[in-house]
């Protein structure tokens, strides 16, 4: 494991190697070398299974982080490969040639985050959201509550309580909800 990571560090310039759990290690890799790295891991190192791929929106840093989770059945450990892509140019190399099932994930990411995967099959078709006409809903600048109120409306009479405050009032009514 250590040898492999050192070799990857030398060949692919990976960074931020973190051992998150006993059998889970994550690291960052540059966007350009990501596909070659994944191919190397699949063909040479035995990480033959793509658990999932997903995306994290770091709006503060102006990046999306794509996460590829690979599993090795012989060594029984998992690698998380993080790839940062810019929010302005949100495109990534499609990996459906490496794992055929990846096109489904890529189609979902295209819909939920608006990340482009050129060449991925059926990537521009509607997945869960049919006829969506707003910015992709999982982007953090999308105000889902405001959108819900505008499009679906709210029934009058709904009220929500802060549990902590509410219980204080319930438990100490004479003290105006004050504990002391």
């Amino acid at each position, binding site marked *: 494991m250590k040898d492999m990571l050192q070799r990857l560090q030398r060949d692919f310039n990976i960074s931020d190697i973190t051992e998150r759990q006993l059998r889970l290690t994550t690291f960052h890799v540059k966007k350009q070398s990501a596909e070659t790295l994944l191919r190397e891991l699949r063909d040479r190192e035995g990480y033959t299974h793509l658990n999932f791929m997903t995306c994290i929106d770091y709006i503060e840093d102006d990046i999306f982080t794509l996460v590829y989770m690979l599993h090795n059945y012989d060594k029984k450990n998992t690698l998380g490969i993080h790839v940062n892509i810019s929010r302005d140019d949100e495109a990534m190399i499609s990996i459906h040639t490496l794992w055929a099932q990846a096109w489904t994930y890529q189609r979902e990411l295209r819909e939920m985050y608006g990340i482009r995967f050129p060449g991925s099959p059926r990537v521009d078709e*509607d997945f869960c959201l049919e006829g969506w006409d707003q910015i992709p809903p999982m982007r953090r600048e999308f105000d889902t509550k405001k959108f819900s109120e505008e*499009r679906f409306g709210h029934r009058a009479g709904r009220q929500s309580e802060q549990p902590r405050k509410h219980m204080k009032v319930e438990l100490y009514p004479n003290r105006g909800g004050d504990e002391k």
Partner: protein
Amino acid sequence: MFKKTLNTEDTLKNSGLTDEEQQLFSNARPQAYEPYPIKAVEDFANWARANSLWILAFGTGCGAIELRPLMTARFDANRFGVAGRPTPRQSSVFVIGGYASVKTLKRIIRSYEQMQGPKFVIALGICPVNGGMYFDSYNTVNQFDQYLPVDLYITGCMPRPEVLVAGIMELQKKIKAGECNGANLYVENFDWYKSNQKKVIKNWDMPDYNW
């Protein structure tokens, strides 16, 4: 070519369909149910309806999991004349199992309109009432009765099968009393319901009424 369109003045536009598809679907409006003129006959019909409620086996949300035990020996909904049906054409009760996402709502509308009358809708759980825990979701409708008429609400998250049995008994009472007129409500306010539906379903590519 044989045209299946009706030449009456008051027809539906079916504007979501292409010209070719327009020939294939009916554009007639739904019609309201008129009760039998003799009250005793209508009462007898209602009694019969109340005792053979056939539920459409279309699990539309997480609440659909509560429909499965209903048929088992423990709850045995068969003693109330309840049975599951695989197709809308044979069923008379549509149980909305919890939240309805926009994508599902389209299928719900399509299935509901294909059901033969008399038909009843039970809304299960809190989500059809006010959105429940999905009140701020980008994809879940908050007030289900804006899109389809609801005859009976069973609230809770999740309601147990016992409550569903109680709800079915309540529905039977209402049917016997002749109070379940949701389907007629839908016909009478058809344009209002349809405009609400089209406000949330943006890719309307089906006929305005699915006969």
